[in-house]
């Protein structure tokens, strides 16, 4: 048996492995439970003891996407046999589908507001961070501290002033209002994160581009931005996760046109008994975009693209 200072021993590897697996179970179990509940029938979802094995059903998803109303057995019989598989599911409970639910619209609102504010935060954050990193900005340190200080209290602490302000400005329950709000909250994070990344990019790259005949903007666009891709990607993920999951402001400031999915999902419970599978189905679908976004940008998070190009 040989010993090495740097390589972990067998026992250390085991301990590390157990820790990682335990952590994964703790964090993933609720997720697994939500995803599983989405495929249960309502009785299965509230069964005690909880059912780990069950026959999957799409009832939750049907209920999530439709509005239904109860009809008398005579009327049901008069309708004739169900024409589609989801009709068949609904009719077991003496109900008929009266139209689509609002989930689609709310989901779309989340997409517009989440990605809109993420784009705006990252865009403004990148140019602000570049300026702070490269130019002589008067009172630079004070400004940076001021920007950071907006994160020193929970954003919801200013909910009332924002609500009143938004009412005056007519921004209540609008996409623009929510995008501006989430951008304002995320901007300090994005400026600070991106400044760190841009500081790491040697200024020689831009100087080389300037000498090669490019303008400062071209040098920024063609040389700095590709270098900062890693930082921009990770900043975008953080911003999107916040804007996507935000609940408190969404409850307070939106109710109709611009309502996002988080405040909408719990309201599903109210229609026709405690419909946990529909809630779980809504939550499951709500997870998908952010998972896809993170997986797409993951390679940027891991790749050190400047490796070896500058000798330090």
């Amino acid at each position, binding site marked *: 048996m040989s010993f090495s200072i740097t390589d972990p021993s067998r026992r250390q590897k085991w301990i590390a492995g157990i820790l990682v697996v335990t952590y994964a179970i703790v964090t993933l179990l609720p997720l697994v439970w939500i995803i599983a509940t989405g495929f249960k029938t309502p009785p299965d979802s509230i069964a005690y003891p909880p059912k780990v094995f069950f026959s999957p059903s799409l009832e939750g998803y049907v209920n999530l996407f439709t509005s239904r109303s109860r009809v008398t057995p005579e009327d049901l019989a008069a309708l004739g046999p169900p024409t589609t598989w989801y009709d068949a599911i609904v009719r077991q409970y003496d109900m008929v589908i009266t139209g689509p639910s609002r989930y689609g619209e709310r989901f779309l609102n989340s997409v517009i507001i989440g990605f809109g504010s993420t784009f705006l935060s990252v865009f403004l954050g990148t140019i602000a961070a570049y300026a702070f990193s490269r130019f002589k900005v008067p009172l630079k340190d004070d400004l940076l501290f001021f920007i950071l200080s907006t994160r020193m209290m929970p954003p919801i602490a200013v909910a009332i002033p924002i609500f009143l302000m938004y009412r005056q400005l007519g921004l209540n329950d609008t996409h623009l209002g929510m995008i501006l709000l989430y951008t304002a909250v995320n901007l300090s994070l994005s400026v600070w994160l991106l400044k760190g990344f841009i500081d790491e990019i040697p200024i020689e*790259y831009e100087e080389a*581009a*300037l*000498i090669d*005949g490019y303008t400062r903007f071209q040098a920024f666009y063609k040389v700095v931005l590709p270098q900062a891709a890693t930082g921009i990607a990770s900043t975008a993920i953080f911003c999107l996760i916040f804007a996507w999951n935000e609940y408190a402001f969404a409850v307070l400031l939106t109710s109709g046109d611009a309502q996002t999915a988080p405040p909408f999902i719990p309201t599903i419970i109210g229609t026709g008994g405690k419909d946990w599978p529909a809630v779980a189905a809504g939550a499951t679908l709500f997870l998908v975009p952010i998972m896809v976004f993170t997986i797409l940008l993951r390679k940027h998070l891991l790749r050190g693209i400047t490796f070896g*190009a*500058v000798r*330090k």
Partner: protein
Amino acid sequence: MAQIVIKNIRKEFGSFTAVQSSSFTIEDGEFFMLLGPSGCGKTTTLRMIAGLELPTSGEIFINGQEVSQKPASQRDIAFVFQMFALYPHMNVRKNISYPLVSQGMPKAQVKAKVEEVAQILGITALLDRPVGGLSGGDRQRVALGRAIVRNPACFLMDEPLGALDAEFREHMAEELRALHDRMGATTVYVTHDQLEAMQMGDKIVVMNHGVVEQFGRPQDIYDWPATTFVANFIGSPPMNFLRFDGSVAAGATEVALSGHSVAIPQTVQPATGALILGVRPENVHLDDTAPLRGRILAAEYLGTTQIVTLDTAYGPMKARISSNTGVTLGDQTGLRLDPRAITLFDPQGRALLSVANQRVLAHG
């Protein structure tokens, strides 16, 4: 191809003056070295020529055109960075073609130019490789390729060999000099390595604390330093300084050190006070009959020569003599100074003009 004239250039960063009123001329096709210790303002001077810093005052002429306040892109220059600064997200070919693309050159022509440059530098096989995996020397060649592909009026290089291994540096220095001779373009090269400067340069500017101490051909600077700083900075080991109080009249051919006189080149300027007599180690000969005495402290063997350190009444002195001469540590011996190669410095450390050095120093 360009002549570069620097006139009274000055650069201040806040209250710190990086370059003080420097003037010199770089002739067309010259390989010109900016030499000095770190922090002396040589890199700032180079960056002002490049347009990466704007001078606080003064003028820079490239080919007769005043450019001191123009952006880098309008100066028709190429810059080689110490850290290479290759664009890491592009492969070798893209890196080299980048300056051409910015000029809007047609694609086919860019391709031909890049191939030609790659041929010159011997990196044709690397063209489609990412820059990340290249060795230091290859990265240096790519950086050079990016510089020469445009055929700029002049090349500016900021310690381009500083990031290379010592062994490889020698080789690259030769390659660089050969490349310069082939292209014939004016090159301004910053270095803190006096050997590199002497080896490669047609002319050298020696800077210290933002001031140009001396500028001229390597041999002139080595033989006839304008200041004690230059005398000390250039040469390894540096010039010996013998400090004495006395005076010399204009036209004197010897100076009186304590108790004996030393022959010197005929002076042109008079001086009085705490003077310094400077003599290079190779102009100090061991000679038992000489009146200046010293005790041998150490001898370093360097192949054909050896450096002998002696303890004298004027402090330690070094002599570079043939290795064939036997020396015994602790021996008392005489030191004869070659009268043709002595420089006197005034109390401020400036060389006194003599018939020997006035040809070199008279122009300023």
